[in-house]
């Protein structure tokens, strides 16, 4: 029902709404807001002239609220990592594949064309043409998905090697006990393991894609 309702909205208006939403979310530091605050914001946005007011011309306020919540805002985090339906509106904060590969394998490593993918983020890189390495990266909470992706790749490509990169932010450091556990699991599976610290994101004043 939600999707059907949103289809009635002309695409360029949807784009403008998502853009306005993400600008607001960036400004308010959405990722660090408590659930309570987020609830209050959904209500505010439903009456915002650039957001809710546009939507409610085509749907009820209630539907607009749930579209905002389950549509663009559910995608917000992924959009900021440059993935998902609304990737072009996300203000890019995650590291690029090239940065990750340079961190994991060194600056000489080259990403092979067409190997970059998502869920989890991954690619295949090669060092001077000598052997290829599967690299998967993500947050510590998705560690098991990284392991699974690497093992799957190695099963299909037994001559490759694999490296995992765990993304840390200053707000979410990996506690040493978890780190020790991750290291022994990676070792058991013959996977290289690195940690990549994302520099503190700036709270932007303007949104938009920033490649």
């Amino acid at each position, binding site marked *: 029902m939600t999707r059907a309702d949103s289809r009635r909205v002309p695409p360029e208006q949807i784009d403008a709404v998502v853009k306005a939403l993400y600008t607001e979310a960036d400004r308010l*530091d959405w*990722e*660090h*807001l*408590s659930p*309570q*605050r987020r609830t*209050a*914001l959904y*209500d*505010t946005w439903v*009456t915002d002239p650039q957001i809710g007011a546009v939507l409610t011309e085509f749907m*009820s*306020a*209630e539907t607009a609220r749930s579209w905002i919540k389950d549509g663009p805002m559910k995608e917000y985090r992924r959009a900021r990592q440059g993935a998902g339906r609304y990737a072009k509106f996300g203000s890019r904060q995650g590291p690029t594949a090239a940065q990750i590969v340079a*961190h994991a394998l060194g600056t000489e490593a080259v990403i092979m064309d067409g190997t970059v993918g998502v869920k989890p983020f991954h690619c295949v890189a090669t060092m001077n043409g000598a052997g290829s390495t599967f690299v998967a990266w993500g947050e510590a909470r998705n560690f098991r998905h990284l392991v699974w992706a690497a093992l799957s790749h190695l099963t299909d490509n037994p001559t490759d090697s694999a490296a995992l990169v765990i993304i840390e*932010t*200053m*707000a*979410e*450091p990996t*506690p*040493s*006990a978890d780190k020790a556990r991750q290291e022994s699991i990676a070792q058991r599976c013959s996977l290289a393991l690195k940690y*990549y*610290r994302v*520099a*503190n*994101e*700036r*709270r932007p004043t303007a949104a938009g894609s920033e490649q």
Partner: protein
Amino acid sequence: MSSEPRVAVGEETIDVTPHPRLLAVLGDIEFAPWQCLAELIDNAFDDFLTAPPDGETPTVAISLPARGSDRRDAQVWINDNGRGMSLDHLSGAVSAGWTSNARYGKLGLFGMGFNIATARLGNTTTVRTTRAGDPDWISVTLDLHNMAANADFEVPVVREPKDDLSVHGTEIIISGLKQEQHEALSRQQVKIRRVLGDVYSYLLREKGFSLLVDNTAVQPLLPCVWNHDRAVVVSGERIPAYIPIDKQLSPLLACLDCGRWQDLGLTRCEECGGSNLEERERRVTGWLGIQRYSHKTDFGVDFLRNGRKILVRDLSLFSWADPNEPGARPIPEYPIEVPNEGRIVGEIHLDHVRVNYQKNAFEYDTPEWKYAVRVLRGDGPLRPQFARSMGYDTNESPIGLLFTGYRRLDPGLRRLVPGDGKTAIHQKARDWAELFRKGVADYQDDTVWYEAARQHDIPKPTVPPEATQPSEDPELDARTRLDIPEPGEATPGPIDPPPARETEEQKQQRYRTVGQVLPDISGEYSLPNYSTWNVTVYALSGTELLDNNEQHVPVYAQGQRGPEVHVFVDLEHPLFTEFGSDPREHAVLSIAEYMRERRGSSAAVSSIVAELKDRCLPDQRVTPSALAAIAHSLLARVRDAMRPVIAGNAEGFWSLIGADDHAATEQTYASEGLDRAWDDVRAAGDWISYAPVTSVARLIGQRPGDFFDGKVFRASYAAFQDSHARSLAVSRIVGYLNDVGLLAERRARPRPDDLNRARLSCRLLDDELAEVSTDE
């Protein structure tokens, strides 16, 4: 045994370096968990204030052990993206007693905060730090048990190469947490976030600093005050609800070694002899204002130093201590009137006043603190009468003004207090403040509170004149009432299509447009076993209310989308205008009926109403104690208004009230324990403030000419020629007074009829009271 730290005997010296055990002992100093974190936050915020990170949000991210975590693995992290430290700086930062700050400019003050805070939290602390451009992170680990066991202060430095040279910042990782700290930190995240949001409110909201606890932003606690342009008028003087403060003191030299201020031109500190002097600006800045709600404890002035709250909701400025009596206990002056709730608040920056090392008090004996107190609350007492009796002029300081304008909590715009037409709705005002703090859009500015105060003043529906005195042309009259244009001036009729019949939705929209929201009974209605409804009540005047069967009804409740319910009340329905029923009562009744119907409940509507009032409308309670508060406040106003008259012939009036009342008055005065000589009080006529209600009524009965005709009461007296008319006027007022007196002294029988009679008497007496300029 020697008390000298260093004893020189010829060339010999002894080494007084303390044992490393000292570092662990610092952890015995009483610091609450949040205070420990705050010490470490202060270090980072100091750095941000000096040099905010370029193009990044200045952020401190704290990560606390999870609920149910194993204490042995648990860690506390405090990470910041400040400039980071050099090895030298790091070595100073972890050494007790060292400080990089020019001491008296910053939050981190004593160079001990780091050691106290970390030792209090746990046994092992690692500090990792790096500056932009440094090739590696440098880190040191202080293991207090090891250091004490080995009697060694030396700790190894570890270097870890950096991938990205531009990274900068500092991380503090504390492990080996103490049992009680682990308990508190892993269970009290919400509480810690709330305290930090209060203490750092200013820096978070004005400087754009970000503080994260477990990846959730600490929200600055925002002051919920009236809009800056609101004001009340007392004795012809406009008193704003918001007073900005900016008082600059002459700059002085600050000694960066001991903190003492001294005159410009000196080259050495008069206190410690140091030459590290720096000229500094000194200001008292910020604001004082009135909160949109009153509260027993949540009011008072916040005092900040460099953006951090040192005193939170401080009440000391509301007391007065006689400077001529050293050691005299300060006398609380606000709030002193029932219901004993305060609403004066403020945020005052005193960057130049020294604080104690726990950062929870200023040094109150310094001239700087005393000056700030004088700027904000003046020298004399706040209460004018008391001030005069102590030899002071009226207190015209900012707090003195706010006291005059806002100390009373009578509902209505006159005092800026939300009400419901009958009584103040303090609880509702506090509930709305919760919504303000949750960020709910409608509650961000003060409209809801202001409307409730405004509507309280709107007179109750009275019988409209046209109902009793039909005009010459009844048709014209109906037209005016329904806002139908004159036939002549109407837009050409024949071309217009016949007006379409109004749909139910259009009709309700029309009601919403012309109606006025009654905020005091709107809001969330919820009972156990019933759904929760968001009710908005609209009061209509001059618009006939039709239900969905086109019946003319006094009240009409309609469900909207989801949990929204709109209730429309026709204030001019005969039920209210001719039978005197209370529109609000009927609105609540219809809400109860709506809830009952939707639930399919067979409960009696009356029992639902009772429960709704109990849970959702506590302000409407007509308990003896709630009413006593109203009566007290009203009587205080009557006595105040009478005082100038009494003062004209204090002894004469005194002799009128009789021996029993003399005794009662003296006893009341004695029990309040005021210092002023009773003879003075009597001579000045101020005894009326302590006289029982019976004597107030007696005075009015005996000397009505002195108190009527706008002197205290509006009612006419002297103009009446007829003696019966005169006595009727007097007995009416005296009757109300006696009712109010019974209520104030809680002698009214707690039967509903008696309570209602007393409540009406309060209202009627209030209406009779003339707008007299009293000096309080």
